[in-house]
């Protein structure tokens, strides 16, 4: 699952890049997750 590190220099993003789409899925997740919180808080506001 975890591939051997291939890039020239190891770095934080390079490490995350060792599996299938792991880096990009991680980045997408951290961008999208807080939107659930925004959704919930807007919902609360609307219900008031």
């Amino acid at each position, binding site marked *: 699952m975890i591939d051997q590190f291939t890039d020239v*220099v190891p770095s934080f993003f390079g490490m995350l890049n060792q599996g299938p*789409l792991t*880096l*990009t899925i991680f*980045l997408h997740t951290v961008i999208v997750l807080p939107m659930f919180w925004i959704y919930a808080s807007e919902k609360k506001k609307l219900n008031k």
Partner: protein
Amino acid sequence: MLTSIKSNHLTSSGQRLGMMYFRVAIILFGAQLLMGLIAAIQFIYPAFLFELFDFSVARMVHINALVVWMLYAMIGATYYMLSDETEHEGVAIGLGKLAFWVLTLAVTIVVLVYIFIQIGPGKESTIWLINEGREYIEAPRWADIGIVVVVLIFYWNVFATYLAGKKTGIMTVMVANLLALAGLYLAGMFFTDNISMDQFWWWWVIHLWVEATWEVFVGTLAAYALIKIIGAKREVVEMWLWIEVLMLFGSGILGLGHHYFWIGTPEYWWEIGALFSALEPVPLIAMFVHVLYDWGKEQGINGEKPAINNGPAMAWLVTNAFGNFLGAGIWGFFHTLPQVNIYTHGTQFTAAHGHLSFFGAYATILIGTMYLGLQGAYGVKQMKATFNSKMGLFLSTFGVLGMGVALTIAGYEQVLVERAELGAGWNAFFVAQDLPWYVQAQLWRAIMGVVTLLGFVYLVLDLLTIGKKARAAEA
């Protein structure tokens, strides 16, 4: 369009300044097409103007005229909608006018130097005075600094007017987006010996312009135009605008990674560039749906009175919705994955995408805005498309589409033969360039270029006459 200089029904000086920008934009558009035609002919007859007006010169003026006419039209469009949206006259339109003349003078000098001096010795003075030799942002450093000053005046005008006037959602997006758009130019204003570093920052300007801030600009323009032309509901339009901003910036900012596959940058950009930029078409589909949906909806509601008050502007807007999705979205997606891009990078594929997307995403909507401007300038309530408007739209769209298809075929040949079969290199390049099918495609590109130019002639003819005709019809 010319008559509108004399008999002007626009009460706002900001809108009149917008029209001045439109006029220069359309002239530069013409220059772009002529230069493109020279370059297209040189692909077929390399001896054409050899060592007199080489391909590099024609191509440089071709793409610079493109960038500059679009920026002119964008500044014009901003000035045009500024007073309308904020319900404020504009804080320093007089200064804005001065900036317009300074910018136009600078652009004229830069173009003349490109054409007559062309290149210089390998010294700092060349990149300060003649050209910087960096695709799209070749403007010499003195002009860079001048552009920054002029843009600061422009931005001050927009920002201060926004603060002083009514703050609509459209203007909020506009003001924030323009700040990013203008600020990004600074990333392209330095010299380095390191070509990887050079291209890294160069893409900050080019990509974050055309695949992020310019696209958001188009979103705001479309929102404004929909309200103006078909009386779309502001709340609906503004909600869509925020969705578009979310998706455009969400995919476009990190989508920058698709330019960092092969320029010396780390391998992790493969993943970032691939998936973020693969999502870039999504907002373009959203925009397409949004425009068509509103169009259909508003037409159904307004029973007796005609729903569209500006035929040609609406036609260009719909062409934009479609062209943006097709040219930028589909053609971009074609070669955005690294697995594909390692073969297509630096081939005519890129040129095909460039032609379709710049026209589809930007030229169309900017021309549509010019029609909006004309409607205002002549004080026409109902502007109908004339024969010339239809020919202008049809021929230029058909021409660009034809060029895009021809270049895609050329690119396909090049990818398979030069890159896959022969393994790149000097010899592989020329073998691919001499393939009969490649040569044929280049011929078709030139023919379709002429068709585009013909469409442009109709367009200019229409812009010059439609206002007067519509006014006469209403009187």
